[in-house]
């Protein structure tokens, strides 16, 4: 569904992602693990077209989207839950979700979003900025889902969230994949969360994928070594 080939990204003179290859199949959940500063966020931003690629291609469902601006990529079916959530703080919960509806027309959020995240229904007319971290994370995911994506990108969704809520989050993400049939690429530092949801785990180090395992065959100790400082 998502195919990345030889992706290169630089900030000015310094290259951060080096000829990175990556594929996510339809209905698959892939976790990219790596410590701070290894290039996870840069990868996500490059896939969204927020930072330009210096080389390589990104394809979605077989169609090359490397040259498209961000909003057209969203229309093609890629959605983004950024690190730090970045909901629109002065807009209400309902309005936040509705910003995701414009790509495909339609003014009302579909009911299943509120079924997935009942707390958002309760908080519908609160301002996004006044929600707790966990609630904001759910809002950011609901907003992304409102764009009807084929591929959902999540950048460190567990960062700054309570353990009990992290378990709910894992369950919800699996449920979304099963019910909506989409592919998920999630970046993480928390191994237990990745093991909870991913079908396949990749390790990124200094802008290169250095290790890859299917969930079933995963060498936990080895991945944990990559994650420890």
């Amino acid at each position, binding site marked *: 569904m998502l195919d990345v080939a030889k992706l290169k990204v630089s900030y000015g003179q310094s290259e951060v992602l080096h000829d990175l290859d990556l594929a996510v199949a339809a209905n698959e959940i892939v976790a990219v693990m790596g410590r701070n500063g290894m290039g996870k966020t840069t990868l996500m931003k490059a896939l*969204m077209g*927020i930072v330009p690629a210096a080389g390589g291609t990104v394809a979605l469902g077989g169609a090359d989207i490397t040259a498209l*601006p*961000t*909003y057209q990529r*969203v*229309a093609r079916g890629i*959605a*983004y839950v*950024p690190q730090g959530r*970045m*909901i*629109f*703080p*002065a*807009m209400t919960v309902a*309005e936040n979700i*509705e*910003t*995701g509806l*414009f*790509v495909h027309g339609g*003014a009302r959020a579909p009911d299943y979003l509120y079924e997935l995240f009942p707390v958002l229904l309760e908080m519908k007319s609160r*301002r996004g*900025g*006044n929600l707790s971290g966990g609630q904001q994370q759910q809002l950011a995911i609901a*907003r*992304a889902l*409102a*764009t009807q994506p084929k591929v959902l990108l999540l950048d460190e969704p567990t960062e700054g969230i309570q353990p009990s809520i992290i378990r709910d989050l894992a369950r919800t993400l699996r449920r979304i994949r099963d019910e909506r049939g989409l592919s998920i690429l999630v970046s993480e530092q928390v191994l237990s969360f990745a093991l909870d949801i991913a079908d396949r785990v990749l390790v990124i180090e200094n802008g290169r994928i250095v290790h890859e395992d299917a969930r079933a065959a995963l060498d936990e100790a080895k991945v944990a070594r990559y994650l420890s400082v």
Partner: protein
Amino acid sequence: MIFGYSFGDLGSILAMQGFAGLILFSVYVLMALGLAVIFGQMGVINMAHGEFMILGAYVTYLCSHLFTAYLPGLFAIYFFVAVLLAFAAAFALGLLVEWAMIRHLYRRPLDTLLATWGLSLVLQQLYRSIFGAREVGVELPDWMMGSQHLTDTIEVPINGLLVMGLTTIITIGVFLLIYRSNWGKRIRAVMQNRTMAAAVGIDTEFVDRVTFGVGCGIAGVAGSAFTMIGSTSPTAGQLYIVDTFLVVVFGGAASLLGTIASAFSISQTQSTIEFFLSGSMAKVLTLLAVVGILMLRPQGLFVLKVRR
């Protein structure tokens, strides 16, 4: 007794000057709305905003003459046509300017400041070449000239009421546009986080262009209102741009209500003091008051309380 006036007289003076300030208030509100919408949306300080207002004033002037010459029967309603055309002309020029100039300068505030200042000079020269350097004025139809007697000492000018009504409609319109419409959701999303707005599928460049156009269009309407209190000349817009900045800063740049309250207090203070002292003394006192209040409340009169 103050300044030799009795309290009854003072009441009448305050009321009369208050009503006289209505048009000034309206011009401020409309100018500040446009400026604030543009600044809030894309962080662009449009130094040419006054010239967009004057474009609206010239369109109104042209309308008044064209109606006199070709449609004298409809002269009574020319002002309403002029308002629409003033909006359309300033909106169109705004789109053009955004496309040709502003969009290349986003995230470079100083360059935008200089570029729009340059634009204001270009526009002034254009107006001078097309309409001449001399001031022009509009004719008002008879029904707009009169005034309504409230009491023996208080009279309300009809054109003031009319312009107030117009301003109210536009302000409510802008409010509905921004806070109740789907377009407004796009605008606010871009305002609050441009990157994320694009990442939920919003074409931010298009939103920028239309918003800039609407802001300029509102300045055009302010120009229509302006024709009733001042005479139109190529440089008349410059006198208003500083006052308008004052209104926006005083009100707190992100708040519609703040903008209105601030326009009201500044225009009323000015027009009331003007009655007792000279116009420039009124300006000085108003400015001092604004500076004093801003020292106590640097964020402006109104701010939105939300965690970021």
